């Protein structure tokens, strides 16, 4: 961790001539008010993207975002201010604004800097600069050619590469002083196919916290092109989706977005501290069938949702949310953990220095069960087999959640038959998993495409699950 901290200091503090003792002085200035805790979050984010359309890369963009956010906490009150300039005077001014939630009072205690335990889940590299523009342009052109060669019905290909290098440093009154360098790459392919005047779309994407080298080596990007074309061609054959409540089998991987919406958000600490979640006060109770064990795991190497440390400097961990059907605990940031008198779980995340940390998910998935996927489908007389999804949404108070299938099939007499059009699935979070009848042995994680929104803040996340059979779920098709 010391090396990462040194790298973060070099990127964020040294150009402004800010020393560790300046951070201590600013925190001390905040703590001279009736403030329980304070932190300073420095960030430099470099983002680059390239887009191919009509067979050529006609657009590229390069963005830099940097600044420092200052937070002061007094009981349940939070004061927050930030500055786009990383300079000592701006930092002092932001500290003055943030501490104004509290009165002048007892000197709060400022802890000496402590060292966090080391964990390195990804390398501190810069995927923005590790390859020339030409390499990225060539890759996009290769994807375009591959998608078009696959089928003459492909009429449009839009492919993009996005790379981010995010450097952060957090200093807190509790002695936190640590930094991280977080690479993130993502490749996306979207195609339009046309046949007899009918047009359909297919898309695929993926990435993670690594160098672009990985995408070049694995030929990951070209498999995305194949996947996008395959999905679009299947949609050309799709008939109207059924409407009503039926047995639904979800495929492995990205359909785990179900867990993110139905379970995950409702188990975030802030909602439970406030008693506004449908899961409030349910720890120890059965919320799922005993085949279900669900975790939030920020420690998977190189995954999109993983973090060495969260945005408050807490080491990320694997938190068991549901074990054999019983609700075990919530995901916490420091503020909500303290107010609920539990330990933080490394889930304190923020979109940027200009946003306050909140309890957020990392990679949320269900552990593998014992059934063979084919065996699961064979048990269904009539139902839906949904293998790919768009996004979802949840009302954490009523527990109602939705997620939208983008590739699905009918199951008839134990066999997967015709493809159906996309449809939204709706259910109730606290009881949907009680109807999980079979869990497959084929756990898979998504390919690295998830972005989660909460309170206007977006953060990268991951999801996953094995094949799963739910006996009753409402499918929002048009074919009644």
């Amino acid at each position, binding site marked *: 961790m010391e090396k990462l901290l040194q790298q973060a200091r070099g990127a964020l503090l040294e150009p402004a001539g800010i020393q560790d003792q300046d951070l201590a002085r600013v925190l001390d200035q905040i703590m001279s008010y009736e403030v329980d805790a304070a932190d300073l979050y420095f960030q430099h984010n470099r983002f680059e993207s390239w887009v191919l359309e009509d067979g050529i890369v006609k657009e590229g963009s390069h963005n830099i975002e940097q600044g420092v956010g200052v937070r002061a906490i007094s009981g349940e009150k939070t004061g927050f201010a930030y500055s786009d300039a990383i300079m000592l005077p701006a930092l002092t001014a932001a500290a003055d604004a943030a501490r104004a939630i509290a009165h002048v009072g007892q000197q709060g205690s400022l802890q000496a800097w402590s060292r966090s335990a080391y964990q390195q889940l990804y390398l501190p590299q810069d995927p923005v600069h590790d390859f020339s*523009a030409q390499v990225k342009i060539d890759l996009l052109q290769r994807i375009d050619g591959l998608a078009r060669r696959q089928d003459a019905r492909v009429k449009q290909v839009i492919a993009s590469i996005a790379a981010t290098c995010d450097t952060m440093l957090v200093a807190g009154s509790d002695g936190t002083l640590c930094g991280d360098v977080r690479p993130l790459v993502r490749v996306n392919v979207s195609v339009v196919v046309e046949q007899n005047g009918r047009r359909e779309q297919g898309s695929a994407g993926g990435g993670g916290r690594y160098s672009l080298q990985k995408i070049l080596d694995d030929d990951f990007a070209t498999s995305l092109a194949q996947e996008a074309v395959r999905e679009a061609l299947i949609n050309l054959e799709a008939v109207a989706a059924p409407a009503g409540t039926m047995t639904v089998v979800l495929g492995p991987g990205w359909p785990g977005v179900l867990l993110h919406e139905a379970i995950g958000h409702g188990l975030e600490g802030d909602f439970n501290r406030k008693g506004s979640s449908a899961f409030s006060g349910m720890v120890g109770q059965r919320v799922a069938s005993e085949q279900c064990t669900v975790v939030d795991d920020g420690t998977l190497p190189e995954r999109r949702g993983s973090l060495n440390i969260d945005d408050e400097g807490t080491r990320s961990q694997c938190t068991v949310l549901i074990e054999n059907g019983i609700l075990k605990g919530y995901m916490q940031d420091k503020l909500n953990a303290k107010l609920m008198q539990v330990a933080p779980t490394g889930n304190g995340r923020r979109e940027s220095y200009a946003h306050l940390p909140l309890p957020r998910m990392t990679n949320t998935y269900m552990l593998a069960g014992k059934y063979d996927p084919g065996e699961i489908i064979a048990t269904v007389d009539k139902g839906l087999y949904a293998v790919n999804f768009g996004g979802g949404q949840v009302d954490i108070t009523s527990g109602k959640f939705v997620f939208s299938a983008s590739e699905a099939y009918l199951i008839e007499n134990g066999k997967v038959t015709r493809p159906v059009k996309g449809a939204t699935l709706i259910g109730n979070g606290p009881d949907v998993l009680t109807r999980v009848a079979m869990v497959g042995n084929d756990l898979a994680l998504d390919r690295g495409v998830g972005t989660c929104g909460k309170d206007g803040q977006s953060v990268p996340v991951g999801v996953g699950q094995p094949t799963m059979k739910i006996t009753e779920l409402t499918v929002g098709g048009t074919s009644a």
Partner: protein
Amino acid sequence: MTTSSHGQDLIINNDTIERYRQRVARVLALAADAGATSAEASLNVGKGLSATVRLGEVETVEHNLDQGLGVTVYMGARKGTASTTDLSDSAIAETVTAACDIARVTSEDPCNGLADAALLARNPQDLDLYHQWPLTVAEAIAIAQRCEDAALQYDKRIKNSEGATLSSQEGINIYGNSNEFLHGYATSRHTVSCSVIAEDGAGMERDYWYSSARCADDLDAIGGIGKIAAERAINRLNPRRLSTRQSPVVFAADIASGLFSSYVSAISGTSQYRNMTFLLDCLEQQVFPDYINIREEPWLKRGNASSPYDNEGVATAPSDLVAGGVAKRYVLGSYSACKLGLQTTGNAGGVHNLVVSHGVHTLEKLLAKMGTGLLVTELMGQGINRTTGDYSRGAAGYWVENGTLQYPVSEVTIAGNLKDMFRGIVDVATDVDMRRSILTGSVLIDNMTIAGE
């Protein structure tokens, strides 16, 4: 509670606007020096205060001060874009260099370039978009408290709260390009919102309400906002599901604008030239019933999305999008216009206030006209396929019989195809939601599939 001022305070006046205009002028000069054949830049600075109270106590006080510069350079028909939140001279120079480096390696595209100089807004009009609200932190907290208190006092079943928030934001937007366009103006937006939780033996339901305006004087009564939030949450208690059926549906005014934003997306130049739309080549075709007109009104004083020029400096003007149900034009910026062989419609960056025509009925009368069906007050998820128009979303609302509300409904979906839904609009009510950039009343659609139990 003390008032605090931010160290690098932003004072919004003509001198500041002029100072930032000069900054943009320097960016354009730097781009020219770096070899760009043409360039455009936009600079946004803003500041604000937001205060949230929950159950009467302060939860967060947030001071924001934001800045950002975006620059696009052209080298002949090649294009590069870069942006930064660091406005130091060195960061600006780096940003211009980054944009130029990109423009040297991208492919030539004959449609790349600045908007036609003849179309630029030469004397942009003042649309009354900036109204300062000089608030102390203590005053902001007091207003949020008043709003939440009205909700908490409304009914004893309001047992919890996600809080009430006052947010006051103001800023300056400058846009310049190398066709000698360089203008800027100030805008403001003030919002009071409240979200509360109703609870009885059967469960919890949350709902919210808000008021938002350019000028604080135009906000709704503060207590009324809390009261409506409470009323909405209470009315949702004890929802039932519905059996799967076909039924007419009313989209309540505050969510009906989503229908028309799907229309805007379908007729946007980008969707059209990419073939990613269910309304491909729809100009002069009947897409709505003949009693539907949709007009863009960019010059509404204090309008939510009013603007004298678009993101490329092209002058805006009021014009019809849909007349007599017929699609009269697309929504185009210069690039998508060129791809389609058309002229820009001054919509780079989007539409500037759409006004949807309505009939003579209030919402109550519209429900009577529907007779039996679903009044949808909340939609969940993004289940809209732009290429095919297939529509399937989670919904909550009220079941209506003989024009009167029977009981709240949740955990159902509504589905159809947007093409049919547009043509199936029976009537639009007079209860226009003025808080949005698409101004529409509640919309009655003849038939959709409801999936439930």
